């Protein structure tokens, strides 16, 4: 069952909720190896997204909604994650611009374009201890699940699971991008906050798809 605009709306609502619930966890993680604002930044961003995306006309496509997510995150987050997630949703929305509904291929196209947007913007590679360490395994897992002919909900669940493992994989790393790179070896043993927020957002997508 392909996913339409209601799915996107539910995904946003669940993302906003999850980010809000994990706000202090994200703050604590970012305080360890950053400036301590990731929870606040993301909560401000997704609260604004929830409001803005509600204003869209009834005939808005998934891509229209995803573009509003992008521009709102860019305008409101105030930290590195704003341009990064913003670019992700922008490139992702462009990749599915022509679809009224998102099938498995479209979901993989969205995720791939989103990840590529983050790389284009932030120049991080897997292993640099950034949100890319969650996104890239998520894209790969989604592509594999789609190739196996799984449902949209299964594809997104595979992405979320892989993002979760990816986030965990950042624990032993030294950061090569973002503020945590100032810490050198001292970043070892701490999880990258952006990889955790990525996992929350992809898990929200999987949950919204399962409920659709």
């Amino acid at each position, binding site marked *: 069952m392909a996913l339409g605009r209601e799915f996107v709306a539910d995904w946003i609502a669940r993302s906003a909720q999850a980010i809000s619930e994990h706000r202090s966890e994200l703050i604590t993680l970012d305080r360890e190896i950053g*400036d301590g*604002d990731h929870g606040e*930044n993301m909560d401000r961003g997704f609260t604004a997204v929830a409001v803005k995306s509600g204003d869209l006309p009834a005939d808005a496509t998934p891509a229209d909604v995803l573009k509003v997510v992008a521009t709102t995150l*860019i*305008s*409101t987050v*105030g*930290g*590195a994650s*704003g*341009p*990064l997630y*913003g*670019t992700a949703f922008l490139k992702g929305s462009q990749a599915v611009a022509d679809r009224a509904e998102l099938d498995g291929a479209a979901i993989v196209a969205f995720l791939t374009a989103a990840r590529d947007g983050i790389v284009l*913007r*932030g120049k991080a590679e897997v292993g640099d201890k950034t949100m890319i360490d969650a996104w890239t395994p998520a894209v790969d897992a989604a592509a594999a699940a789609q190739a196996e002919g799984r449902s949209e909900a299964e594809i997104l669940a595979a992405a979320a699971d892989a993002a979760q493992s990816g986030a965990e994989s950042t624990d032993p790393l030294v950061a090569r*991008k*973002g*503020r945590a790179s100032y810490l050198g070896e001292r970043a070892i043993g701490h999880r990258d906050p952006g990889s955790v927020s990525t996992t929350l957002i992809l898990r929200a997508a999987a949950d919204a798809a399962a409920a659709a």
Partner: protein
Amino acid sequence: MSVGLVIVSHSSKIAEGVVELAGQMADGVTIVAAGGTDEGGIGTSFDKVGAAIEAAETGDGVVVLCDLGSAILTTETALDFLDDTARERVAIADAPIVEGAVAAAVAARTGGDRAAVLAAAASANGDA
């Protein structure tokens, strides 16, 4: 006319202070602060950066000075939203924000074009 400068800092105080300091040596150069989040907190604002780039364009292009990496990310994103002609007239300096801005402001005041202003800013690297 001269190249305009935009100062993108996580702190509105830093951005305003750099405008003051660099402005002292650069009478007539348009230098615009884009510091802090929309709420005035520590961070960067896409809207402030976009508006500052527009305000700094007085006909000879714009050079942007940034403090930390996320200021560069915000600025690059703002550039993505410009149309091609406007974007081609803006460049981000590879330079420390305070020292680079002073050098860039002097180069702009003495009539340097965008490449000269960028080079002046970059010359402040490694020579604090």
